[in-house]
C-alpha cells in the first residue's frame, strides 16, 4: 500500500469512525433517556459537546507530567483512527490484507484504554490514579476471554490471523455466529465489548459517583474532547470489529442489502450496549474480575473447544 | 431583701429630655438576632420591667379595654386582678394596642416583637454589687435598695422583686 493511499484511508477512517461514533453516542444517550422516561438530547448533541470542549481552556494539574498529560489523548485518538482505517480497508479489500493484522488490531484496540491510564497517571491525582488502576484491571479482566473469543473465528477460518481471510471465509461458508461456538463467543464478545467501552456495569474506572470522573477527573477542554471523541470512535470500532469477526461485516460485494443488514446489526449492538448499561448497577472491580475470569473465561474456553470440534 | 426600684415618671422625663442609655446584664439574648452591624439592641431587661410596671401601676384597667379589643392577635388578656398580660408568643409587635389605649398607657417602645427578659439579676450579683441597670441608669430613677411599698408615696409593689414609683396615676 502506498503512503498516500494509507493516509487517505486513515483520514477516511477517522471521519467515518468519528461520525458514526458521534451518532452512536447520541443513540446511546437517547435510548437511555427513553428507557428512563425522558426526552433525551438533540441529535447534534455530541457535536455540540465536542465543539464546546474545544472552545474551553485546558487546565493542567500542577505536579503532574505536563507532556504526557497532553499527549495521552493523542495516542488514544491515533490508535483508534488507525484501527478504523485498517478495518475499513479490510472490509473494502478483504483480499489484500496481511497476515497478523488481527493481532495489530487487537493491540491497537487496547491503546485507547492505555492512553486513558497514562493520562490519568500523568495527572497526579489520587482519584485519577485509582481510576487508571481500575482501567488497567478492567483490561486484565476482559482481555483473557476477549482473546479466546477472537480465536473462535480464527479457528473456524483455519488458524489464520488475517482478517481478510476470516471475512472471505465467512463470505463463502457462512458467518461464524452461525454455530454454537460462534454464538457463545459472540455473546461473550459483546460483554467484553461492554467492558472495553467502560459502560455500566463495567464502568468502575470512571465511576462518577465513586471517584468523580475517575481517570478523566483532571481533563478539561480540548484534551477532554479528544478523549471523548476517542471513546465515541471506540463505539464504532469495537462493535465493528466484532461484526467483522462474527458476522463477516458488510460483504458489500455480494449485495447492497447486506449493507442495510450490517447497519441494522450495528444498531442492534448499540441497543444491546445501552440496554445492558441501563438495567444494571455498576459492579465492583473485583467482581468484574471474577466475572470475567471465573465465568466468562471458562465459557470462552468452551467456545474454543466447540470451535475445534467444528460446532 | 433588696429590690429593684423604678421611678417611672422620672424615667419618662429623662427619656423625653435626651438619650437614655440604660444597660442590662441579663445573660441571655444579649444580641439582636439580625444585628449585623451592631446597631440593634438585644435584650433590654429594663423594657420588660417597665412594661410590667406600667401594666401593674399605670394602666387604668378598663372594663372593656380598647387595647384588648384592638389586638389582632388576641395577645392581650387581663388576669383576675384586671392586670394586663401580653402573651409573648402571640404578640407580633404591631402596636395596635398602643394606638387603641385612650390613656396612652402602652408606649410603642415597650412592646418590641422580641420579648425581653429580666431576672432581677438574682443569683448573679455578688454581695454588695448592684444590677447593671442601676449602675448605668440615671440617678434616682432606678435603684437597688431595701425599699418597702408605700402607697402614700405612690410606691407600689410589683411582684416580689420590683417596686415602682408612679405619682401621676394615683389609684
Amino acid at each position, binding site marked *: 500500500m502506498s503512503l498516500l493511499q494509507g493516509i487517505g484511508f486513515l483520514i477516511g477512517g477517522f471521519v467515518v469512525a468519528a461520525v458514526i461514533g458521534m451518532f452512536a453516542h447520541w443513540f446511546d444517550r437517547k435510548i437511555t433517556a427513553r428507557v428512563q422516561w425522558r426526552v433525551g438530547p438533540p441529535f447534534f448533541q455530541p457535536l455540540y459537546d465536542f465543539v464546546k470542549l474545544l472552545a474551553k481552556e485546558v487546565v493542567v494539574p500542577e505536579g503532574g507530567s505536563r507532556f504526557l498529560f497532553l499527549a495521552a489523548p493523542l495516542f488514544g485518538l491515533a490508535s483508534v483512527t488507525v484501527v478504523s482505517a485498517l478495518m475499513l480497508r479490510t472490509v473494502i479489500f478483504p483480499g489484500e490484507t496481511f497476515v497478523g493484522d488481527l493481532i495489530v488490531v487487537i493491540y491497537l484496540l487496547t491503546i485507547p484504554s492505555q492512553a486513558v491510564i497514562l493520562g490519568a497517571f500523568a495527572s497526579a491525582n489520587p482519584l485519577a490514579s485509582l481510576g487508571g488502576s481500575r482501567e488497567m484491571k478492567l483490561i486484565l479482566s476482559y482481555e483473557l476471554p476477549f482473546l479466546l473469543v477472537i480465536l473462535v473465528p480464527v479457528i473456524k477460518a483455519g488458524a489464520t490471523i488475517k482478517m481478510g481471510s476470516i471475512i472471505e471465509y465467512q463470505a463463502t461458508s457462512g458467518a461464524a455466529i452461525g454455530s454454537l461456538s460462534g454464538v457463545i463467543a459472540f455473546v461473550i464478545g459483546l460483554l467484553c465489548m461492554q467492558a472495553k467501552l467502560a459502560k455500566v456495569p463495567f464502568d468502575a474506572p470512571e465511576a462518577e459517583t465513586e471517584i468523580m470522573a475517575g481517570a478523566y477527573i483532571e481533563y478539561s477542554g480540548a484534551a477532554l474532547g479528544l478523549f471523548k471523541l476517542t471513546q465515541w470512535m471506540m463505539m464504532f470500532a469495537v462493535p465493528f470489529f466484532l461484526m467483522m469477526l462474527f458476522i463477516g461485516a458488510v460483504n458489500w460485494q455480494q449485495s447492497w442489502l447486506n449493507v442495510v443488514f450490517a447497519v441494522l446489526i450495528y444498531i442492534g449492538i448499540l441497543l444491546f450496549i445501552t440496554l445492558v448499561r441501563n438495567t444494571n448497577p455498576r459492579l465492583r472491580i473485583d467482581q468484574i474480575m471474577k466475572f470475567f475470569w471465573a465465568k466468562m473465561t471458562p465459557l470462552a474456553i468452551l467456545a474454543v473447544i466447540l470451535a475445534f470440534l467444528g460446532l | 431583701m433588696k429590690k429593684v426600684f423604678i421611678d417611672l415618671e422620672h424615667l419618662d422625663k429623662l427619656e423625653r429630655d435626651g438619650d437614655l442609655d440604660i444597660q442590662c446584664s441579663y445573660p441571655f439574648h*444579649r444580641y439582636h438576632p439580625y444585628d449585623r452591624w451592631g446597631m440593634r439592641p438585644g435584650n433590654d431587661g429594663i423594657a420588660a420591667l417597665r412594661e410590667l410596671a406600667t401594666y401593674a401601676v399605670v394602666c387604668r384597667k378598663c372594663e372593656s379595654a380598647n387595647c384588648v379589643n384592638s389586638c389582632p392577635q388576641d395577645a392581650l388578656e387581663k388576669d383576675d386582678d384586671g392586670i394586663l398580660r401580653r402573651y409573648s408568643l402571640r404578640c407580633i409587635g404591631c402596636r395596635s394596642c398602643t394606638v387603641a389605649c385612650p390613656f396612652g398607657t402602652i408606649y410603642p417602645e415597650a412592646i418590641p416583637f422580641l420579648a425581653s427578659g429580666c431576672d432581677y439579676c438574682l443569683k448573679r450579683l455578688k454581695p454588695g454589687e448592684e444590677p447593671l441597670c442601676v449602675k448605668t441608669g440615671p440617678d434616682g430613677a432606678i435603684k437597688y435598695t431595701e425599699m418597702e411599698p408605700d402607697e402614700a408615696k405612690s410606691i407600689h409593689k410589683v411582684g416580689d422583686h420590683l417596686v415602682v414609683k408612679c405619682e401621676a396615676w394615683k389609684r
Partner: protein
Amino acid sequence: MADEVLEGIKAKFGGAIVEVFEKSPRRTYITVDPASLPEVAEYVYKDLGARFSIATGMHMVEGFEVLYHFALDNADRFLNLRVILDLDKPSVESIATRVPATEWIEREMHELLGIEFRNHPDMRHLLLDDDWPEGNYPLRRDWKDWRGGENGNEK
C-alpha cells in the same frame, strides 16, 4: 411504676444525686454530681439499657450545664442526666469510652462551648474550621459576634 428506674438510681447513687425533677411521667431530669457522672451514665446506659440520644451543653447562670439525654425506649421515657460545671473552667470526665456514641457530641461541645472533657480520645475540631481562633466559643452566651472585625476574622 416507672419509678422503679428512679428508685434504682437513687438507691445506687444516692449521694451523687443532687436533684430530681420530674417534669412529666415521660421526662425526668436528674442532676448528678459531676464526679460520679461516668458511673451513673454507665449504669443508665448499660444496666437500664437506655439509648443515648444526645447531650446538650449550656452556658447558664449558675455554670455550664451538660444534659445527657437518655431514652428509655421500652418505657416511653426520657432520662436527662444533668451536671453543672464550673463557670470559669468547665471540665468533666468524658464518658466517650463508656458510652461510645458520645464521642462526637463531646467534641462538638468542646469546640463550641469550651467544655473540657477529660480523657476524651480525640479532641480535634469537629465542625469548625481548623483555623478557628483558639478560645473562641460561639455557643457561650457572652460570645461576641465578630462582624466588628475582632477575633482575626477575615474581612
